[in-house]
């Protein structure tokens, strides 16, 4: 009974915070609401005997993703000033999004209802974190390594994309001057002729 109540409370918070995250008009608050959602999720993890995941969730998401997002919000803040409105996270198209989402909810409810999940019983013993590590370094070692490449590529790419300006070379006004300075760039030098 207690468990059920607790679950209900967590679930309510989870869904409510999620709704707020997609509903609130202040972007900073939305990100914060997302943080609450993610944090609440870690409660679920604990209930599901996955403490490692819960920890990861709190650190990586709340610590990493959330701050990244807030960063993003700050960096793009100027827009709100230009638009002259403080609230800058309006929604639109709710009228057409709602039916779809409603149907999706219905579908999930139906699917869950029609699928016999009651036979599934919780595992007797909670797995140890070490086992997870073994898996990662075993079967999923390749995926893990690929993941590292992915993260590297994402970082490099993100930096190069988001960098304000190519300092010296692209600081010049006329791209043709640049091009002329580049012996390797035949394309541009030929065009001038």
């Amino acid at each position: 009974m207690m468990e059920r109540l607790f679950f209900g409370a967590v679930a309510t918070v989870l869904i409510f915070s999620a709704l707020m995250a997609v509903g609130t008009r202040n972007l900073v608050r939305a990100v914060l609401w997302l943080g609450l959602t993610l944090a609440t999720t870690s409660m679920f993890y604990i209930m599901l005997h996955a403490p490692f995941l819960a920890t990861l969730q709190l650190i990586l998401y709340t610590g990493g993703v959330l701050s990244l997002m807030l960063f993003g919000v700050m960096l793009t803040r100027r827009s709100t000033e230009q638009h002259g409105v403080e609230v800058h996270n309006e929604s639109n198209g709710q009228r057409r999004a709602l039916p779809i989402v409603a149907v999706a909810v219905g579908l999930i409810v139906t699917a869950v209802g029609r699928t016999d999940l009651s036979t599934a019983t919780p595992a007797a013993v909670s797995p140890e974190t070490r086992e997870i590590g073994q898996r990662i370094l075993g079967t999923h070692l390749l995926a893990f390594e690929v993941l590292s490449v992915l993260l590297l590529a994402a970082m490099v790419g993100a930096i190069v994309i988001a960098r304000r300006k190519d300092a010296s070379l692209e600081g010049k006004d006329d791209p043709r001057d640049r091009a002329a300075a580049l012996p390797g760039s035949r394309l541009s030098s030929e065009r001038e002729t």
Partner: protein
Amino acid sequence: MGLESYVLIAGFLFCVGLYGILTRRNAIGVLVSVELLVNAANINLAAFAHFGRGLDGQVFVLFTTALTVAEVVVGLALVILLFRRRKDILLDLANGLKG
């Protein structure tokens, strides 16, 4: 609590995220919503892992989490780029390409 409760909650969360993607005008708002989608999947995975489907579920959660981080990084970079180009990040205003 039964497995179906978790799956249902995850489903709801997924739908909320979907709603967010469809409605948020702000690109970062959309990123937030995408997080909800992945989070919903994660809850599912953790629940299934707990309910006898094996540890791989939890491993999967690890990977998705990492992927999400990478995704957010890239997403934010793109948003910033968009902001540089257009001085705003409202998605419905970024419709120069169409037809």
